[in-house]
């Protein structure tokens, strides 16, 4: 079977976010990584490939040319092919324009299953996956915490997470699933894989390669949502920090503060 995994290159926030002295975000100081939910989605696809011989995994990303780094990382983990969608006219896209663009690229590919991450750690919208499904007319299952494939019957069975429960859902393929990081522990790149990754041909597509996409629906101009104002949030300053010599001292410090604030 053929699986497409949509991945995004995002700034890393794991080692803590770096701030400029004025309290704004220091983006340059953060590394670019593969978005964690997307990586779980990729791992899910690779596990299907491990157990279903003949499976082909294509990773697809939209971004600046340097986003090929995450495609190569995905190939080093075991993906077969990489597709980069990059074009100046696609820049500044909101989730509508992004999903329209990615759907336009996917129309050129064969697939039984599309996996995206639930959300990216920069935008946190969780919109692009379901919107790609909408543009392609596919069933969508969001927030997947477990995925089982029945290749013979062309169905997937997915545990879909909610706050206080999960639903076991069955969908016909082709369909789109959005993956939670909880789904699995992604594998590391293999040595052979890293070698393959640097040999691998990355397909690069621009605006002209998108199928059935109207100019009115791409890039900044084709985005229904417009930014009125954006700012880095200046964080509330840290309060007090003490390093008491004994637990007793720590306790009397906390009890003192709680009393002062009339909590107790």
């Amino acid at each position, binding site marked *: 079977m053929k699986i497409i995994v949509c991945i995004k290159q995002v700034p890393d926030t794991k080692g803590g976010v770096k701030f400029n002295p004025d309290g704004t975000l220091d983006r340059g100081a953060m590394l670019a990584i593969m978005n964690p939910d997307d990586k779980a989605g990729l791992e899910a696809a690779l596990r299907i490939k491990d157990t279903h011989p003949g499976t082909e995994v294509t990773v697809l990303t939209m971004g600046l040319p340097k986003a090929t780094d995450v495609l190569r990382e995905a190939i080093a983990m075991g993906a077969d092919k990489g597709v980069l969608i990059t074009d100046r006219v696609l820049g500044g896209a909101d989730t509508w324009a992004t999903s329209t663009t990615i759907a336009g690229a996917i129309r050129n590919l064969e697939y039984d299953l599309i996996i995206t991450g639930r959300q990216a750690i920069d935008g*946190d919208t969780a919109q692009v996956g379901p919107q790609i499904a909408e543009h392609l007319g596919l069933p969508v299952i969001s927030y997947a915490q477990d995925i089982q494939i029945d290749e013979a019957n062309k169905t997937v069975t997915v545990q879909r997470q909610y706050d206080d429960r999960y639903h076991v859902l069955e969908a016909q393929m082709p369909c789109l699933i959005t993956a939670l990081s909880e789904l699995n522990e992604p594998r590391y790149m293999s040595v052979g894989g890293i070698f393959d990754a640097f040999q691998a041909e990355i397909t690069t597509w621009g605006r002209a390669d998108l199928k059935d996409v109207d100019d009115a629906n791409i890039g900044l101009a084709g985005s229904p*949502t417009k930014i009125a104002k*954006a700012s880095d949030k200046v964080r509330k300053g840290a309060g007090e920090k003490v390093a008491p010599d004994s637990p007793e001292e720590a306790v009397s410090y906390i009890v003192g503060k709680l009393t002062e604030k009339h909590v107790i």
Partner: protein
Amino acid sequence: MNLEEYKGVFIYAQQVDNEISGIAYELLGKAKELAQPLNTEVTAVLLGSNVKNLADSLAEYGADKVIVVDDPELEVYRTEPYAHALASVINEYKPEIMLVGATAIGRDLGPTVSARVATGLTADCTVLEIGDFPLVPIPGKEAEQKHNQLLMTRPAFGGNTIATIACPNNRPQMATVRPGVMQKIDPIKGAKAEVIEYNPGFTKNNRYVTVKEVVKAVSDVADIMDAKILVSGGRGVGSPENFKMLEELAEVLGGTVSCSRAVVDAGWKPKDLQVGQTGKTVRPQVYFAIGISGAIQHVAGMEESDIIVAINKDEDAPIFDVADYGVVGDLNKIVPQLTASIKAALAAK
């Protein structure tokens, strides 16, 4: 698209197991505020099976009208019949604003519906107001500034950046709204709304999935979003057994235990106790962060707490950047003594 045709503030009145979710009332509270400068009405859209009787409670929380789509297909939430129902309501009744809760349901329904009706959607909003777009008119293009627009403010980057977004050329203006942020009104007992029944008809297609099983987490704990005092534990607590210490502290303070994502991932605590970006947003009077490093995704869910007390053995833990009172030390020693000490202080009163 004739924007003038679109009128009214609509909210999606989420129900689960035929019980209205708290977010629906929160959205009604906000919708009432937004409707005032627009001089328009608030409409709740209620989708489900045998849900008509829920309309009255929506009226009590501020709905002027309730549009009900009642159909057996809508018994359990599934993307397709729900998206079809909500998109059909939007196409039929043309609201200028459509608000949906940023819940595990709304964050699936919202994007699907917004793409279907070809409008923008702003995710996880924390502030909504009516204003002008652009905020300041462009010199020489004053006439192009649009008034009475929905301005949607949302955090991104785990709460480290904040953006205000408008949707000037498409309708409805759609937003998902983070639960626990908007205020519900005091219910008006006996209030009635005009109830409109509407059914767009449901035809099965490839997009319908089958619900094989519904597995509910067994939980008899209080909702952490309602707690005045939260004693929250992270990976640093060390084991599920060690949470007993936190439970005892919570008990003497009349509080509730919550946790970080790492604790849920490790299977120590259920998902509904999770604070943070992918869990719940809480704003208690006191938040104890115990053995929680303070990843930005966690901080995003608790930084609005009135008082934050952090206990962590790592003096460089980012949690100390948001804590009002940070204590560097061993939680295993501090927490039990703290519980005993508070118990003694309360007994002495």
